[in-house]
């Protein structure tokens, strides 16, 4: 987007059928399709036709056609016990004439995936036209879909729990009777039916209200495309209980869980943290110890130490130094009050809106977007060592001066020296909040400290339906931590501590108070954020790599990366300046033309030309999947 804003001609090609790559968010049915896609690890047949387009003076760097950044995807449905009733309804289903949208939605996405990559997108879409929502087809497709997911899980330990999926999945189109009986108890079929109300993020992040992303959104005026909600609560998990953490001055004074003495201790410490640099004597002696050790010397009660360490600074007990801890605490405190009582904002409709907002800015400034369009290879000129063009899946050659490639597109041969970290993720749909209060509509963040010291803490973000990410009477819970094992091994212990996974035992004492998990998915996502460009093998200097999401809570890493890449390409240009008043541009041709043509180079000959593509022949930057630029 920054490139388009600076007058570059930008073509964005993406092999996915959605925006944002691993930053995307999905409706429930969309997520099911995504799960299915990532569980099937089939390789795409390579078509070699395009090789004839490469001249003798050129070399080829093949790109990976299959995204390998997601691993160990396991999904579970914790069904209700209405199965007897459901079986009956399931049998009647194919005869029903009209179906709700979710079924049809699933079909649309599936047919898109089934489309062979060599086929042109336009005829494909048209051929879909005749079977426009004719009833039975959507239902059967979705049915088969659910059944497949279930069978894939059969080897996993929770087979018993999966069984209901099969039966419940079939009833999705006719659940009105169930919902009438118990309005508050959400069934899997209701989740499927209301699937459109979900916007489930693949990454779970919050925006620090004074973080780089907020600054960039405001500066570039991209913020006008999005709306945000304040995270309303900071929670802590201590001695098996979830409690609210008071962090602002008002919170501390209003808190009923703290004694007067504690209030004074906490305020005194937080005030100190805000300008800790001014009082070096206070922490000088602890520079070489951990933040946790430092806290112990500060006359704070254990509960206050816990709050500060895990919920405010959100740092590790064992390996965070005093200075890092003070810095993190200060950052948290500085972000308080800008947009409400906590330091965090969350975008309505999910984090996945943010890349779309930047894509919109890019498009507004002339960027061209092609989804479902993959790239075979980069073409490198042997003499200059620079990348000249790409060849896409139609065998079309598209020339450009600069290329930005997301890490996931690079093939193994380029990445032999690269060592990736992984992020463990879980997404749960639950029936009540982790901490019920007078308001149901809370956005909460909870850091669960590791059981074994040295392991990473787990960040839990609970979203309510007013964030437009889940249906009414449900909560969407995201768990994230840097991986040590598979996502399920890393996160399931925490899920078991916080939630009730066993609907059969629901009448029993304390389990009753815990939210029930209705549906869950675990997966590992590649974290390519720390990889230096030099560790990729043989990439030309005008090919820039942008990473996937990192595991941190904020978005600073992605913003910094985007700005760095932009500055390398165009050192003289400002990164995402505020846009001019629209009226000034639309009606003033003279202003656009020089800007646009300034950097364009002469298009190379293209052996095959689809009419739409020809305009992108001289695009100055080819971008794939990059989030913030």
């Amino acid at each position: 987007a920054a490139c388009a804003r600076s007058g570059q001609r930008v073509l964005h090609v993406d092999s996915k059928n959605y925006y944002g790559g691993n930053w995307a968010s999905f409706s429930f049915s969309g997520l099911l399709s995504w799960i299915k896609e990532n569980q099937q690890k089939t390789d795409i047949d390579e078509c070699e036709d395009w090789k004839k387009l490469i001249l003798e003076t050129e070399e080829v760097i093949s790109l990976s056609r299959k995204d390998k950044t997601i691993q160990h995807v396991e999904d579970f449905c914790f069904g209700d016990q209405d199965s007897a009733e459901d079986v009956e309804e399931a049998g009647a289903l194919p005869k029903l004439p009209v179906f709700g949208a979710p079924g049809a939605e699933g079909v649309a996405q599936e047919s898109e995936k089934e489309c062979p990559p060599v086929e042109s997108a336009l005829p494909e879409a048209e051929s879909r036209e005749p079977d426009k929502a004719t009833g039975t087809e959507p239902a059967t497709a979705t049915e088969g879909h659910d059944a497949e997911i279930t069978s894939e899980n059969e080897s996993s330990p929770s087979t018993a729990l999966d069984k209901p999926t099969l039966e419940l999945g079939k009833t999705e189109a006719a659940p009105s009777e169930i919902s009438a009986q118990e309005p508050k108890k959400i069934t899997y079929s209701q989740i499927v039916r209301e699937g459109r109300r979900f916007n489930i993020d693949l990454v779970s992040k919050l925006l620090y209200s004074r973080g780089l992303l907020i600054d960039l959104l405001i500066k570039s005026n991209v913020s006008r495309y999005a709306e945000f909600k304040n995270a309303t609560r900071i929670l802590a998990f201590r001695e098996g209980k979830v409690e609210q953490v008071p962090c602002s001055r008002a919170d501390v004074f209003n808190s009923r869980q703290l004694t007067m003495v504690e209030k004074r201790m906490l305020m005194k410490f937080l005030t100190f943290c805000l300008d800790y640099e001014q009082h070096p004597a206070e922490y000088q002696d602890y520079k070489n110890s951990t933040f946790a050790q430092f806290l112990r010397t500060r006359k704070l009660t254990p509960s206050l130490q816990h709050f500060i360490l895990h919920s405010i600074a959100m740092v590790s007990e064992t390996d965070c130094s005093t200075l890092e801890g003070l810095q993190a605490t200060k950052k948290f405190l500085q972000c308080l009050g800008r947009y409400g009582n906590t330091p965090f904002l969350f975008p309505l409709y999910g984090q996945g809106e943010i890349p779309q907002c930047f894509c919109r800015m890019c498009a507004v400034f002339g960027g061209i977007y092609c989804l479902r369009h993959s790239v075979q290879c980069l073409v490198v000129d042997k003499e200059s060592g620079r990348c000249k063009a790409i060849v896409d899946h139609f065998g079309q050659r598209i020339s450009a001066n600069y290329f930005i490639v997301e890490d996931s597109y690079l093939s193994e041969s380029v990445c032999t020296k690269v060592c990736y970290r992984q992020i463990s993720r879980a997404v749960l749909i639950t029936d009540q909040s982790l901490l019920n209060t007078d308001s149901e509509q809370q956005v909460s963040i909870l850091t669960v400290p590791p059981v074994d010291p040295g392991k990473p803490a787990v960040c839990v973000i609970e979203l309510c339906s007013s964030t437009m990410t889940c249906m009414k009477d449900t909560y969407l819970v995201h768990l994230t931590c840097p991986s040590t094992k598979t996502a399920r091994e890393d996160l399931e212990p925490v899920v078991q501590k916080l939630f009730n996974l066993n609907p059969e035992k629901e009448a029993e004492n304390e389990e009753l108070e815990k939210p029930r998990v209705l549906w869950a998915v675990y997966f590992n996502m590649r974290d390519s954020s720390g990889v230096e460009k030099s560790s990729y093998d043989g990439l030309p200097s005008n090919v820039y790599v942008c990473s996937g999401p990192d595991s941190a809570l904020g978005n600073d890493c992605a913003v910094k990366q985007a700005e760095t890449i932009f500055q390398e390409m165009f050192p003289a240009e400002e990164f995402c300046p505020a846009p001019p008043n629209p009226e000034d541009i639309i009606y003033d041709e003279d202003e656009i033309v020089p800007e646009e043509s300034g950097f364009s180079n002469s298009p190379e000959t293209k052996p095959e030309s689809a009419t739409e593509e020809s305009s992108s022949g001289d695009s100055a930057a080819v971008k794939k999947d990059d989030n913030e630029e």
Partner: protein
Amino acid sequence: HFDHNISPTIGASFMTKTVPCGNELHKFLIWDTAGQERFHSLAPMYYRGSAAAVIVYDITKQDSFHTLKKWVKELKEHGPENIVMAIAGNKCDLSDIREVPVKDAKEYAESIGAIVVETSAKNAVNIEELFQGISRQIPPLDPHENSNNGAIKLGKQTSQTGRRCC
């Protein structure tokens, strides 16, 4: 007003238009799709909270009418449930080279419950009528829904008050 020399709306992201409807004034926030629809790559953000969609085809091109049906389907599947749809057959000033009969469009619009009108952007025919038609169909504001649920807009500009459409 239509100007042949205007390049597509580069740099514009939304326009506003106020339409009187009964005792109310409806302020339309019109989101330009900025060409993202060209390769069927429209981002879902355009659908968020939109009250109405105007889908335009060219009465002199049968193909464009097919594409329109594709968009209707897309909107029904991914758009808000109660979205008001309007179909505009543009270039009605060129009806002598028409490929899409008025009857086809009317029948189709009826089958999907959409407003249908033939327009000429060039001669400003029926544009006002189109927006008035949409205005009449937009359900009265639900005070609960419109209170924004405490959503925060960032930045300096004043917050949006109208309903948006794409």
